[in-house]
């Protein structure tokens, strides 16, 4: 195996595109190094993108925020502007792993690992985040929900890697939230995760909403029908109940070592209700 540390995007994509066998992008390494531990793992090259210019920066742009692919999640929580704009996204990212993992793990890696249980992904999808993908043929921008394809599999092509995550400027009177369920308080993989983002009109009625569910299907679920249940409401109890039911209905989970399908469907509704209330309050709703 080779270890490469390119300093430009062009060099990185060229390395990845030219790899004869399997090549892996290394950002935080908190998933990749775990996989490397397995006797079944074989790789020809690891391309460490942390030396590529801009990969470790969070920048506030006219359109919102641009988060370099190698920014560790801990740094997100230390960025006051980002925390104020997208508290749900930051909370989700900060739930990944331990303090030690936080110092290394990235949202881009969380996304590219393509686990349906990735914490930051439902929050990013709810926030309407996009990614800038660099590749041998230049860059393209796609919605976050289009990156994972199936557990462990993404839509990225050979030679491509995510260079940045793009978060829009939050709308007026909007808020986001992410909640997950884990048996332990920390150091756990989401059994269910729910991201909610909504915006209110001047009267406190929900104008737009996005709801995303994690760990209830092979990839993140953008639950549009569930979002519709709260649009036009002031998030009264009936709306919350409808949201919960719609989220349970939108869930198509499996029984596994982390929870039963019935439990996941139920808890998806519970968390959606709770997350929506937090997002509503953050949007200024009362």
């Amino acid at each position, binding site marked *: 195996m*080779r270890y490469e540390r390119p300093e430009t995007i062009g060099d990185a994509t060229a390395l990845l595109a030219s790899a004869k066998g399997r090549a892996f992008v290394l950002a935080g390494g908190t998933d990749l190094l775990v996989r490397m531990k397995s006797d079944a793992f074989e790789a020809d090259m690891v391309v460490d993108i942390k030396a590529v210019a801009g990969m470790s920066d969070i920048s506030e742009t006219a359109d919102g925020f641009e988060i370099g692919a190698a920014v560790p999640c801990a740094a997100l929580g230390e960025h006051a502007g980002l925390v104020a704009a997208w508290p749900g996204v930051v909370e989700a990212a900060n739930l990944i792993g331990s303090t030690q993992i936080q110092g290394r793990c990235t949202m881009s890696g969380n996304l590219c690992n393509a686990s349906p249980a990735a914490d930051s992904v439902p929050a990013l999808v709810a926030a309407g985040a996009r990614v800038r993908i660099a590749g041998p043929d230049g860059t393209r921008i796609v919605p976050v929900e289009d990156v994972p394809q199936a557990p462990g599999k993404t839509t990225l092509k050979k030679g491509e890697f995510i260079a940045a995550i793009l978060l829009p400027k939050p709308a007026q009177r909007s808020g986001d939230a992410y909640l997950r369920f884990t048996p332990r308080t920390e150091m756990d993989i989401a059994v269910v995760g729910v991201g909610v983002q909504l915006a209110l009109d001047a009267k406190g009625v929900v104008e737009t909403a996005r709801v995303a569910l994690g760990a209830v299907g092979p990839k993140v679920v953008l639950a549009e029908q569930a979002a519709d249940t709260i649009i036009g409401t002031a998030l009264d109890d009936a709306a919350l109940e409808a949201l919960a039911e719609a989220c349970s209905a939108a869930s198509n989970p499996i029984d596994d070592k982390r929870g039963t399908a019935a439990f996941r469907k139920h808890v998806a509704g519970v968390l959606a209700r709770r997350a929506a209330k937090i997002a509503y309050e953050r949007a200024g709703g009362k």
Partner: protein
Amino acid sequence: MASVSVSTTLNTDEVEFLCQADETLLDVLRNRLGLMGAKEGCGTGDCGACSVIMDGRVVCSCLVLGAEAQGKTIETIEGMAQGSELHPLQKKFIEHAALQCGVCTPGFLMAAKALLDANPSPTEEEIRFWLAGNLCRCTGYDKIVRAVADAAAEMRGEAS
């Protein structure tokens, strides 16, 4: 497999080493540099026994490649005491009986040091959540949390 040549700052010393591309920082510390204080409890970042501080952030050295240490500043348990003067956390861990078997202790101390470097007055809850990546199977954490709080108080100049 090609070796990678790495220069790094380790416990304030300039250190150079060669390692394999797929070798972890933990393996480099233990097998090439003779620093056995960081332990491999799991190799997958789930136990924290291999914690070291890299550029000011506590990380699991089992989830860092040795090659990534290039140009970094790394602190390990071996560099925590200043000569024969123990760090207040080290003293308080012994005083509070915050270790039984002690195999998790170096990791806890590195994580706790990173906490107090960032937050000199953590609450009990902040201590518990910060240290959630360090598993201890002996103590039930009670005496560890007390030792960290007491060390923080001492470092703030408050009498314990």
